[in-house]
């Protein structure tokens, strides 16, 4: 498409996009002839289209000795596919102003495409994505280069306290469960990867039956159906991979201190938390707002930052995953105050586990979550992310519609019960990178 006609489009759209339309999302969903799940919201406010495709191909599908295979497979898919070289893939997208990125975590691996919805741009962008999904080249030459880049990046990351702490924390929580494997891999594992590894991983995990598609924006239902059929065609066939195995309960927590010359200690405290379909999702989510999820509304922020000035950032969160994702408390503080910050944090948690939130705090939490709900869905990009989660985790289609009512229904008693059941103090793992400086030692940071 010529840039000039695009400019005309921009001017035209500014006059047409201001349609006063709101009242919940009309989420449509169906399954393609190949077995891929589709979640779609039609919206013509802006002349653009957002698409995400996800597969159960995250790092939990890696195995020991091949950590990073999932991430490298996903990354390499974009670097040459079908008839298009690496350079041609990038140029075809850039020529129409399309933006493609890949993303992955323990559960998911996928791609997010944003394109103008004008037919020529859209067609070119989607055909390129289809090649990436159906015919990745995994060229040996490109792989060698990307391995070297990834290894260099990891070696650099391994000098940073937040990376070292995050790795140690995952290992403490998950030991030999696949959630303990790092998404970005290990240098020696990456070095051992070959084209055949990537190809095998791709064939086993990037199957149409396992694919979920989210589509948001300026196309019709018919066009969305065609798009989904097209993207799901040509993918490897076969059954979707098995579910990730459950995270076992660990009876006993641990504490690990990793020395580091940084001026601040990085502190991680937590344990395996909850699953995506967990019945305790809402009491834990609402309760955590009061504990450490609600920013300046939270007890951790009040105690550690506002009252004592010990940290810039202190928080807690649950990451709901297919198996139990992490419950994590995090903070960074100057090394001299490490013990104070950790003790303060533990005292806040202990008190919260004993008595839960007050009625006033619970009301405040609900007011924020319910009152802020429209802001979670105020852009195509944000809506796409919700659609992707709904599709990938097979959440009920009315998940968003019932969300605020379920938040409203939570009581203090439920929060206390859920927290006590899930956050057992004896099972908490603590990782500290840096660590308290002994005042008498005369040691100074750096």
């Amino acid at each position: 498409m010529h840039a000039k006609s695009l400019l005309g489009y921009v001017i035209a759209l500014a006059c047409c996009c201001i349609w006063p339309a709101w009242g919940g999302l009309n989420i449509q969903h169906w399954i393609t002839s190949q077995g891929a799940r589709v979640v779609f919201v039609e919206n013509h406010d802006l002349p653009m289209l957002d698409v995400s495709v996800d597969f159960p191909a995250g790092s939990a599908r890696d195995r020991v000795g091949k950590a990073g295979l999932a991430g490298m497979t996903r990354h390499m898919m974009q670097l040459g596919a079908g008839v298009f070289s690496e350079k041609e893939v990038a140029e075809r997208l850039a020529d129409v102003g399309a933006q493609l990125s890949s993303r992955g975590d323990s559960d998911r691996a996928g791609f997010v495409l944003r394109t103008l919805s004008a037919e020529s741009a859209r067609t070119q962008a989607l055909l390129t994505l289809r090649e990436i999904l159906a015919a990745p080249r995994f060229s040996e030459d490109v792989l060698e280069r990307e391995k070297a880049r990834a290894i260099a990046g990891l070696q650099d990351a391994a000098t940073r306290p937040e990376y070292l702490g995050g790795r140690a924390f995952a290992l403490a929580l998950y030991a030999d469960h696949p959630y303990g494997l790092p998404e970005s891999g290990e240098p020696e594992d990456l070095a051992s990867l070959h084209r055949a590894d990537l190809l095998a991983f791709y064939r086993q995990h990037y199957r149409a039956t396992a694919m979920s598609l989210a589509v948001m924006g300026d196309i019709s239902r018919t066009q969305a159906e065609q798009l989904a059929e097209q993207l799901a065609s040509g993918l490897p066939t076969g059954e979707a991979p098995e579910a990730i195995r459950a995270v076992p309960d660990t009876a006993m927590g641990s504490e690990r201190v990793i020395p580091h010359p940084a001026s601040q200690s990085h502190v991680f405290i937590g344990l395996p938390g909850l699953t995506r379909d967990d019945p305790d999702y809402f009491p834990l989510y609402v309760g955590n707002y009061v504990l450490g999820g609600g920013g300046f509304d939270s007890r951790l922020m009040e105690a550690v930052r506002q009252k004592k000035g010990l940290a810039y950032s202190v928080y807690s969160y649950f990451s709901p995953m297919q198996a139990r994702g992490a419950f994590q408390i995090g903070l960074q503080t100057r090394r001299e105050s490490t013990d104070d910050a950790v003790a303060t944090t533990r005292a806040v948690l202990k008190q919260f586990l004993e008595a839960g939130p007050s009625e006033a705090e619970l009301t405040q939490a609900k007011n924020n979550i319910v009152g802020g709900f429209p802001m979670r869905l105020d852009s195509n990009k944000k809506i796409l992310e919700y659609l992707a989660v709904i599709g990938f985790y097979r959440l009920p289609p009315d998940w968003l519609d019932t969300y605020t009512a379920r938040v409203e229904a939570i009581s203090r008693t439920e929060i206390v019960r859920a927290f006590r059941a899930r956050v057992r103090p004896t099972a908490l793992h603590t990782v500290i990178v840096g660590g308290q400086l002994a005042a008498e030692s005369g040691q100074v940071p750096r």
Partner: protein
Amino acid sequence: MNTPLKRFLVLAQTVLICIAAPVWAETQEKTLDNGLRVAVKVDRRAPVVVSQVWYRAGSMDESYGSTGVAHVLEHMMFKGTAQVPSGEFSKRIAAAGGRENAFTSRDHTAYFQTLQKDRLNLALQLEADRMRNLLLSPEEFAREIEVVKEERRLRTEDSAQARLYEGLMAVAHASSPYRHPVIGWMDDLQHMTVDDARAWYERWYAPNNAMLVVAGDVEPEQVFALAQQHFGHIAPRRLPPRKPQNEVEPSGARRITVKAPAKLPLLALAWPVPRLQMPTQDWEPYALEILAGVLDGHASARLNQTLVRDRRLATEVSVGYDAVSRGPGLFVVDASPAEGQSLAVLEAALKAEIARIAREGVAVAELSRAKAQVVAAQVYQQDSLFYQAMLMGEWSTAGLDYRDRPLRLAKLQAVSSEQVSAVARKYFVDDRLTVAQLDPQPLAATPETFKRGFAGARHAR
């Protein structure tokens, strides 16, 4: 939620505005008698409103000895007035379902809230209150300055990349206050007092040095009325004169080495370049934006394609140029060398790529590809209400008229290959260059400690 009649009325109004002038016609602006500018952008895609108050006071307005005070004051703005005690600002916005925060840059300090559309009143009431009535208690200051030091440790002291960038800015600028980090030098933070914060507040926090930007599903007339109601009574202040503090023209290359714990070396090259001053007449800033796009606008852009993918000299490369700023423009290229490659080879290769453009210009396909990114970005950015308000604030505090933004798109479209090579020839010469390099230092090996079970036991006490 919306009655059919209301929809029709809104639509009718919209159509009328569109006929008058395209694109930014849905913005309206008014200046209150006390000098407060109020700009409104109507966007009815969601029942949401973004409110931002911009003060034309950033770190470039600070002086030696009190660097970082703009940002410290930003923190103190949440620490209470007579009517709204410390922490209450955030509590009240949160209770209304809102998200809020603030940011400080070299050029400005801005405060924002995102709320459901019918709750704008709360945001304006609270912002007006703290524009004039901040308490600035010494006790609150004593705690908050510690938080700011922690922020500096987190973002800068312990980040090799941030320290390299801080060093680069300090050396690339000789006379401009852009040489100071926004968060301030640690030594200045150690010696800052509540009186420094108060002096800053009294100097710059005034309606005639501020702009309210509201974007979302709102009626402009109602926003103007609310702004008048809450801010109208605040008296203007006499603002101190602003000196241009222009950067001196460099007279030779400058180099800095930063040693910090890291594994990968990093190289940053910076050249002073013009900023956008007259959007209707300038052409060089637009040519520089296109140059940035040709070098690094997408995965197959020149630097990534040539230096990372083809020649494998670098593992990462990126380009930064912001045409909209109050202070001097800077064009920055940074890159990490691939294993076994020297910084000298990488530096020469980066310069050679720019020299090639200076000599040969850029191919038609390359040029139109760079422009396609710009055109698409113009559409994509409309997906974010916050970003739209942000652009209006940034342009305004930089002394530009955000209503010229459509013109920018046309100007970028019109940039020729000759213009791109002309700016490459004119500005990217060695005597104007600053080079910063990160010399990575190994971490000292110290044994670690591991205890199974102890943490839980201690915690239970």
